[in-house]
């Protein structure tokens, strides 16, 4: 029985995994994608998960976000154990308490940018909080793009719309899976900057998976995952420090 790790700062955990194990396949062919991960994600912080390909970083994020289920162990969002939720409960959780930014294909192509941003609220049958949405749209500089379809937007603009959608719900926690993986460096810096501001100015919590030290450098805390285990973490990282650390872990 692993002890619950003490929070490393005074902030409360918005999401946590306890002894999370995820197996793919059976018997000899089984792959341990997560091998007993226990971790807290602090509220109001920007956490990055780094690791080489196949380290299990995406799997960890998917499981914590309620997109995938664990083989054993527990995942909590707030105080809710995700294992106790059925499909309807998970759907509601994703809609109301979690925001997503994927690497690509973030937007419904038949809806315009504005409709995409308010999509979770519309799905819930709620009116979006207009003042908040306006603020988010203004922050992300999307005011003149609201009636454009995704196909009429650049890659960077599409990701900004995705970030706006994640924020529009005031979800508590935003999961971002390689959000800048398909972008050039200028657009990447923009998106990462926005997510930083979401944490600093708007009080959101962000968990981001990335293999790019430059991107992870925007985070407050970086977790290093290798072979399904957390092997290290850094606080207030610098890009150089991260590169060194990655090189060391790769050896």
């Amino acid at each position: 029985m692993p002890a619950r790790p003490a929070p490393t700062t005074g902030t409360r955990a918005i999401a946590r995994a306890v002894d999370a194990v995820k197996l793919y396949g059976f018997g000899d062919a089984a792959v341990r994608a997560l091998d007993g991960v226990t971790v807290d994600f602090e509220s109001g912080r920007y956490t990055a998960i780094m690791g080489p390909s196949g380290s299990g970083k995406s799997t960890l994020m998917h499981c914590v976000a309620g997109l995938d289920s664990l083989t054993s162990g527990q995942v909590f969002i707030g105080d809710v154990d995700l294992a106790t939720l059925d499909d309807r409960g998970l759907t509601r959780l994703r809609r109301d308490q979690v925001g997503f930014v994927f690497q690509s294909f973030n937007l419904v192509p038949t809806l315009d940018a504005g409709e995409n941003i308010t999509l979770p609220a519309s799905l819930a049958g709620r009116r979006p909080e207009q003042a908040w949405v306006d603020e988010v749209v203004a922050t992300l500089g999307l005011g003149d793009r609201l009636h454009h379809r995704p196909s009429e937007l650049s890659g960077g603009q599409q990701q900004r719309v995705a970030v706006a959608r994640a924020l529009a719900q005031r979800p508590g926690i935003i999961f971002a899976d390689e959000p800048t993986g398909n972008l050039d460096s200028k657009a990447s810096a923009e998106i990462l900057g926005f997510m930083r501001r979401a944490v600093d100015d708007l009080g959101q919590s962000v968990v981001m998976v990335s293999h790019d030290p430059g991107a992870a450098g925007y985070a407050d805390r970086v977790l290093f995952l290798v072979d399904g285990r957390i092997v290290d973490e850094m606080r207030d990282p610098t890009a150089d420090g991260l590169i060194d650390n990655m090189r060391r872990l790769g050896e």
Partner: protein
Amino acid sequence: MLKTALKGLLGHKLRLAITAVAIALGVGFMAGTLVLTDTLARTFDDLFARVGAGVDAEVRARSVVEGSTETGQQRADVDPAIVERITAVEGVKGAEANVLGFAVPVKKDGTPIASASAPQFGGNWYRLDEVNPYELVEGQPPRGPKEAVIDRSLAKSGDFSVGDPIKVQTIGPTLELEVVGIATFGGSDNAAGATFVAMDTPNATRYFSADGRVQTISVVGEEGVSQEELVRRIGAILPGDLEAVTGAASIDEAQQESREQLEVFNAFFSGFAAVSLVVGAFLIYNTFGIIIGQRTRELALLRSLGAGRGQVLGSVLLEAAVIGLLASLAGIVLGVGLAVGLKALLDLIGIDLPDTAPVIAPRTVIVSIVLGVVITTLSALVPAVKASRVPPLAAIRDVAVERVQGSAVRAALGVVLGALGIAGLVAGAANDELAQVLTGVVLVFAAVVVLGPRIAPVVARGLGAPLPRLAGIPGLLARENATRNPKRSAGTASALMLSVAVVTVLSIFFFSFLASINSSVDQDLLADYQIDTGGFGFPTLSPEIATRLEERPEVAAASGVRFGSFAVEGDSHPVYGVDGADVDELFDLGLEEGSFEDLGADGFAVDRVTAEEQGWRLGTELDVTFPNGTTRPMRIVAVYDNAGIVAQNSDGHYLLDNSVFTAEFPAQNQFDARVAVRSAEGVSSDEARAAIDEVAAAFPSAEVRDRDGIKEEQNSQLYQSLGILVVMLALSVLIGGLGITNTLALSVFERTREVGLLRAVGASRRQLRASIGYESVILTLFGTIMGMVIGVAGGAALISALSGTLIRATISVPIPFLVAVLLLAVIIGVLASLLPAWRASRLDVLRAVAAE
């Protein structure tokens, strides 16, 4: 390349299975029609072969007037005195007269055993075993004026045994006979559903034949005399108005005639098969189009690895041909099942056909396979050409979203087709040109198909307009998805559009026909009552009925209606017989010149259109030939507007007095099909009805109807036909529904990532299902509404074009029926979405999000 094609096939088996079902249904219809008609043809061939077996020669009157499909062959009857002279011819072993009249047996409780589907014969029992197709299974042959042999199915349905009394209604008096024998027809209980009452030859001639004459004479030759030789020898002693033919030739003629009648039946079912196949073709075109869109990368990879254009084209076409082949084979099996089922249905309604195994002619198999394969391959041709144009570079590019270019050629073609089609409809309706109207309908349909990708987004957007407000995001998504691939939406809806257009045209035709005959009864029928048989349609009412009615003081006028064929100046025409003295009081024919009272023995009446066409006028004298061979001059004594009310909306261009029918036509034309009656002034309807009922009571098969009853009877017959049509067409609508399922399934597959994304950001399974359901309903409604628009225009033009033939032509758009079709479409739309919606809602969110 063959291997690649086959692998491609296996890779999409589920999607293609749905497509194959569509083709299989179409081919099944076709194969079923062919098998059923072949089987029926074989059955009737066997029947006639059995009837004619043992007959070496047949003697009959020469045919001088060509019969119509309604009247059959119009040959004069034969004086039976000739039998003795034929028997005396050297080489003749025996000769036997054939009496084939009408006889309706009456059940013990007094109700007639009426057949709605087959004739009811009264005939003579043959003494010569060689020519007798019936075999006694009980009792003995009939002898004298009080004895009868009946067929076994009659014995069963009327509960008659040997020794029982039986009442038989004939053209004259109702006979009270005794059943002395029970017979079977070549092992069957009856002859293809016909009822049969036999007496000995002299009495059968006397009671069943109107004029004491017989229909034909069967001759059996001595051993060693060929049929041809026999015919030659008999021919030598026959008077000029009679002829002898060999038994083989006579069988052949009868078989030929029955086949011609089956042709109508064949054409009817082939029509449905054609609609189903065209609907199936749309489906295939659509499915291949989508699949090729999805396989662009795979095809491009093949191209970059060195596959030539021809090879890609060939592989797609081969894939289509294989599907066509498999579906056709399934269709043939389906068709045989369909034929067996339909035959069982015939048995059920009392047509006891001899058991013939389903006839699967090589032609059936070949036609089905060729049709299935050719239609499938042709439908895949355009998508295949598109596939062959995929550039190798597309392998490394992202799959492009379908772009609809506003092709100017397409738009121009559509507009031209549409304009020509509408011109055809309008001109056809104005000029009473049926062919123009039908061409117009086809052209308008083609125009809508061509312009479909332009029309679809506009209409679908309109249909979906209220959805976002009513159903929120699922509604919005449904509307957008229904309009995002205009070509695909239009193609999918086209299949349904065709089915619905055909349903609509037919329903308008039917309901307008109904309205027309009802208003014709209202306006043109002056009679208060009508007597008919409600039976098979053979005229079987005794002329006695009209005569007796006229004697009643409660009756002001009564006239039987007969029909037959005669020739005017050598050209044969259908002709109707009425009582010239009373016709004016019973029917409003719109008399323009002359008087029906002058009809008599030497006059006839003609409608204005025919008179104008032929350049005849009142008083014109013309040579008229009757079935009995007489040709004599007759005068036009009346010109009228329209005799649709007499001819019941068929060809009513000529009228004769019933006395001419009695004098010049064979026995089969001496019965009345209907008797119209008008009650006398000052007689209450109760009194009149009582008097008519009293007369009719002596004739068990006669049914008395008042004006409402006449309409009811006609309407119920039409409703039955409409019912059959609707069931058949519901099948093609169903195929259209399958097409929607297919397209949605493919679209959902294509939108895997989008679906995953929606789920990730919080769409529930129900919302996804609802969205796909709405999308399906939009597509279904689009197809249905377009089909209805075409159908209403086409149906209205059709009725207008028929206004010359159809008396009191009234265009009736059956709103409740169309609303029902629309509701049905919504239901089909919802049902069509179930499977794809279920699959979408079960999609693994993570796999969808992670899908490359």
